[in-house]
């Protein structure tokens, strides 16, 4: 069986999108059905990959490597390791959920669904491509459908929100591109794996200086270019200002995709590109980076506390959760002198990062799904003060959303806990001060999430919602999937850890030099 599995996986939604877009506006049902079918094919494909993946190895698997444009060092190079596989799986799970959630979007449904499929294709591509050119193609491909999904189907202020989102991301992309062109010029390679090997031998900075000049400053400059590209996408404070309005204005099923998967592209970039290729530069500016991560965690939690719109609260909370990933990531990059078994701590922290990425994708998209359900019932209202006491009329909804909220809060037994626990377990010995400061973020998160529960679900019932219908059977079935996964991962994290651990160990070894 030498089928190019990863190519097929990426091409299915790409062509699916073309088919769906060609259906025309009248055949809504067919368009939706086909979209769901294509996304389920994607899910099946991802499951097959998961089954056939050799979990004892941290090496790249299902590798496809062909020359593309030899004179420019461009190769068609695909492969997955534990990290990529996990992200592919997350994409495959979240996209069908989002498609089901948006079942009732009637306005130009064929285009909407086609855009979602293209977005999925872009995500699959981003998470599997290992040559800069090939990877960048998909990285940018994701941007276009996301932009139009916000721009055409969003809330009242969608125009500016979409533009801001696009411009911010493009600025990051351009600096990232310039950096990689400099690297290609200096090293003659676009290949992430090859570049990581060169970085391990500390060759990249020297070569950059040789090819371009400016001594060692060029290394730092190139690093910052690439850093900006990923920092905007995650986002890291202070590059986050596009996010709250984009998340709030996008229709909630799209926000599920934005927060569930697209924000992971940034973290993925940090793990796949920045950490292996620029370890020297990260070490040079480690303290400021740690501060940025701490600020991201604390400030976004405080900002979430100050918000009055459910979606904005969750948007800031999303920044907060990914802040932990970056905190651990930077801590791992540090030299870690004088620490007991630094490799063990680093592996714990990195395992935490990967787990947190998956968990956050699952939980955050589930939360936006709940907001979507409540928006449908309230006619679009989603202010913190608009509700009150609705647990009496919609007990099932309350219970299930409560589970998701507690998972986001990091309650033991649910998935959120394991990731954050591992992160803190690793970061405390590596960078005690940063870990200590970040716990403020944990505290504030607890406060605002509990406030949310209190304002929306508890207290006297707002008479306006006395007739609010509870979840229908199909909606229950829909939210059952993420909720079940939250329990599974909370109780038996080995399910994921087993797949990613060899990869993580290999990444940590890569950092040793």
């Amino acid at each position: 069986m030498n089928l190019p599995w990863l190519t097929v996986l990426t091409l299915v939604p790409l062509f699916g999108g073309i088919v769906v877009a060609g259906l025309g506006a009248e055949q809504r049902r067919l368009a939706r059905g086909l979209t769901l079918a294509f996304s389920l094919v994607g899910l099946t494909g991802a499951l097959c990959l998961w089954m056939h993946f050799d979990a004892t190895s941290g090496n790249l698997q299902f590798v496809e490597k062909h020359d593309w444009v030899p004179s420019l060092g461009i190769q068609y190079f695909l492969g997955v390791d534990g990290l990529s596989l996990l992200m592919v799986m997350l994409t495959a799970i979240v996209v069908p959920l989002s498609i089901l959630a948006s079942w009732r979007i009637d306005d130009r449904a064929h285009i909407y669904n086609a855009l979602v499929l293209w977005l999925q294709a872009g995500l699959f591509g981003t998470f599997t491509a290992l040559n800069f050119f090939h990877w960048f193609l998909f990285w940018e491909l994701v941007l276009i459908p996301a932009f139009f999904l916000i721009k055409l189907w969003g809330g009242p202020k969608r125009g500016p929100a979409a533009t801001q989102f696009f411009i911010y991301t493009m600025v990051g992309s351009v600096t990232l591109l310039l950096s990689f062109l400099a690297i290609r010029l200096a090293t003659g390679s676009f290949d992430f794996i090859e570049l990581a090997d060169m970085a391990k031998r500390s060759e990249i900075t020297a070569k950059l200086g040789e090819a371009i000049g400016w001594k060692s400053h060029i290394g730092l400059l190139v690093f910052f270019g690439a850093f900006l590209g990923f920092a905007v996408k995650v986002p890291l404070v202070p590059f986050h200002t596009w996010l709250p309005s984009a998340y709030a204005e996008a229709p909630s099923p799209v926000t599920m995709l934005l927060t569930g998967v697209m924000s992971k592209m940034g973290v993925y970039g940090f793990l796949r590109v920045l950490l292996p290729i620029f370890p020297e530069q990260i070490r040079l500016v480690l303290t400021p980076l740690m501060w940025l991560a701490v600020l991201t965690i604390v400030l976004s939690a405080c900002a979430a506390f100050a918000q009055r719109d459910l979606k904005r609260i969750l948007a800031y909370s999303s920044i907060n959760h990914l802040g932990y990933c970056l905190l651990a990531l930077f801590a791992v990059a540090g030299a870690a002198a004088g620490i007991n078994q630094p490799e063990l701590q680093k592996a714990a922290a990195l395992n935490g990062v990967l787990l947190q990425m998956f968990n956050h994708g699952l939980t955050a998209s589930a939360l936006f799904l709940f907001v979507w359900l409540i928006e449908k019932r309230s006619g679009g209202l989603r202010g913190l003060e608009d509700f009150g006491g609705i647990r009496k009329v919609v007990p099932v909804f309350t219970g299930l959303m409560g589970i998701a909220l507690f998972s986001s809060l990091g309650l033991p037994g649910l998935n959120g806990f394991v990731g954050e626990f591992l992160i803190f377990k690793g970061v405390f010995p590596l960078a005690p001060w940063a870990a200590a400061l970040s716990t403020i973020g944990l505290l504030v998160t607890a406060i605002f999430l509990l406030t949310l529960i209190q304002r929306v679900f508890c207290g006297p019932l707002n008479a306006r919602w006395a007739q609010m219908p509870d979840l229908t059977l199909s909606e229950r079935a829909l939210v059952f999937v993420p909720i079940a996964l939250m329990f599974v991962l909370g109780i038996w994290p080995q399910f994921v850890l087993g797949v990613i651990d060899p990869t993580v160990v290999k990444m940590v070894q890569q950092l040793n030099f």
Partner: protein
Amino acid sequence: MLAWTIYISFIGVLVLMLLPREAARAARIIALLTAIAGCVVAFAGAIQQSNPGEVTTIVKVPWIPSLGANYFLAADGISLVLVVLTGLAAIAGILFSWNVEKRTKEFFAFYLALIGGVYGVFLSFDVLLLFMFYELTIIPKYFLIARWGSTRKEYGAMKLALFSFVGSHLVLIGLIAAWVVARAQTGHASLDLLELSKVSFPLGFQHWVFPLVFVGFGILAGLWPFHTWAPTGHVAAPTAGSMLLAGVVMKLGAYGCLRVAMVLFPEGVRMWQGEIAALAVIGIIYGAGVALVQKDFKFVIGYSSVSHMGFVLLGLATLNTIGLSGAVLQMFSHGIIAGLLFAVVGRMVYDRTHTRDFNDLQTMQLGKLLPFAGVTFVLAGVASMGLPGFSGFVAELQVLMGAWKVFPVATILAGLGIIVGVAYILRAMQKAFYSDAPPGKFGHDHPLEPISVPERIGAVMLITASLVIGLFPGLLLNWIQPCLNSPLFERLLKGGSL
């Protein structure tokens, strides 16, 4: 075989002139057939050429022996790329001017004459011949704009003609000087590009002649600050005219810079390298910045051409293989994409709404009325932004890579230009097609004519071309790169091999 691209076009002109005045339909079909024939010949000839790295002679007969002038047509990989571009652009231009009703046959006669001249420039390897074809293109350009144009058409046409003439005179002075010096040095008169390129002109001579010739050609390539003809000319021209102006005529200038100015005076280039790069970067940023604040849709695209041609000039200024190959690819890419953008603005939008003012367009919800135009503009727009997958990306990628080596600061500034480019495309897209402004009274009382079949074919053709080259740039790079390693470019690149 490739020479037939020129002859076919001029035969088409003759046939059109013999047609009766009323036969508009026949004129269109003849023009289209001529353009298709030209394009087929261009492709066939290009594929037939076994070694694109070498200058392959097509025809060489003595013309004015006392001056050393020959009728010398030849092609190497760079010519092939541009000839193929011309073929594609010619077909697209005709498809997008299917609705020209006013003196149709004359319109297409001028159009084909322009195309024939352009083919001629790209295939001439005799300096005088090249110059003749170059001059020949000015006349049809002038009449196309002055007769069939819009918005201050006499002004735009006159400005374009005057700028072109000034440019060609600079070139002429430089070439005469080169001819005199070369004859004194070698003892016999020659206007053969290949022979002239072997002459070592004195450094002091190159120092003043090179800028003369380079600027002379650069005027037509939109070299800042001599670019001012471009926006007004593009805006005044009829759709097909602006497609050709941006698509191929600006390439004539850039081609002249590379083929004549840089190849003949390699030391001159090195002396002025920094200045050229500076002007190119100013052009990139200035063009993009000005495009960002335009009220007229077509001016946005007009200035965007100045910005994109800045990348060509920056690539030329790098003087290394990768930068030059990026510059040539950018010529092709911009030819395709700018053509498409002008087609959307001029044909799909302006011919239907009779306005290009963003304030009016904003109230029309064109994204819903003309979905095909909206999608085409989005695709052309993202291609123009330089998104990967489209030809512009591979071209700008090479230009920037080459520029990193020589001008790191300019590279970073050019990156800024790309970002502004993203902004103006988004703004235009937003205002013209997907505005949230409340619908106005305009446009709703009379439904817009739907997008016609020729328009669809033209749009699909150009988008496909851009995508194919974006995904398989090797198709053209296999022609361009061997060429840059050939003896013709040896002296130019010897200082900056990469």
